[in-house]
């Protein structure tokens, strides 16, 4: 219904405006409706990293785009926390300082939502309470082992046996 969608839009937009500067260490972002009537209009993202001019998301860098998208997804989450969240290497384009802010935010949100995240990044591995290692000791067959951070780092070094 119309009120529901309008409410959701307002809430997500407000959350997005809060989470974006937390992830970027400053700047601002918001959603924009492309039409008059909410029931049939599209949604555009405007994002302004700290110290830059407001730009359409196409001009943003690879890392800035990923971080902006993370802020948007987490805004949807705050509104309606799903039972769990699965992230597949979303930290790949991020530099170290953005990865650290991303991890801070995930840790805060984990009070309400369970996170399962796939990563090759040491900083992200360190925030995990539990590390699940997936290996292929037997070629083409996946097995799961419990690992600690040292073993996890070694796994990335371990080639899949040729």
């Amino acid at each position: 219904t119309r009120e529901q969608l309008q409410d959701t839009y307002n809430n997500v937009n407000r959350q997005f405006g809060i989470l974006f500067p937390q992830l970027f260490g400053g700047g601002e972002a918001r959603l924009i409706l492309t039409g008059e009537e909410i029931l049939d209009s599209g949604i555009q993202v405007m994002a302004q990293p700290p110290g830059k001019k407001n730009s359409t998301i196409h001009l943003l860098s690879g890392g800035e785009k990923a971080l902006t998208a993370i802020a948007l997804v987490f805004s949807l989450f705050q509104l309606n926390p799903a039972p769990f969240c699965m992230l597949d290497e979303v930290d790949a384009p991020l530099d170290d300082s953005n990865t650290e802010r991303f991890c801070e935010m995930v840790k805060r949100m984990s009070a309400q939502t369970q996170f399962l995240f796939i990563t090759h990044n040491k900083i992200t591995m360190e925030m995990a309470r539990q590390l699940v290692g997936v290996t292929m000791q037997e070629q083409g067959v996946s097995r799961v082992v419990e690992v600690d951070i040292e073993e996890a780092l070694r796994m990335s070094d371990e080639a899949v046996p040729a």
Partner: protein
Amino acid sequence: MRLTKLKLAGFKTFVDPTSILTPGQLVGVVGPNGCGKSNVIDAVRWVLGESKATALRGESMQDVIFNGSGQRKPVGRASVELHFDNSQGRASGQWSQYAEIAVKRVLDRDGESSYYINNLHVRRRDVIDLFMGTGLGPRAYAIIEQGMISRIIEAKPEELRFFLEEAA
């Protein structure tokens, strides 16, 4: 409704019965390229009702069944089961009374998929309804596939609306 366990058998590279326990709130999944990490995410989306083979990187739905490797022969069945802790009774409808919810999907090479909730045979629709509006459908915002994160904001304005409607 926290996820407490995933059980896979015959699903992609998880040919042997495999259990992944997830007791905590912050679970990292690590390992070399091609070892099967993203296949775990595909398994979750499959159980939740994904019906398009290409969304699971296959050409037909049978591509999710273990297809053989250097030393192993293909198998005839894939099965994935998710276990949820529902001690707070937040699952919708008739399922709110159970302390644990187990959702399963099974596919044979020559047949259709079958779905189960707590070992009761259900329709795909029942699994979708169980998670309706929680952001956890097969393609909703709670599961971000590899390489997809930036495409979310590059999406056309109409597509972004879809995410919003899911959260409403």
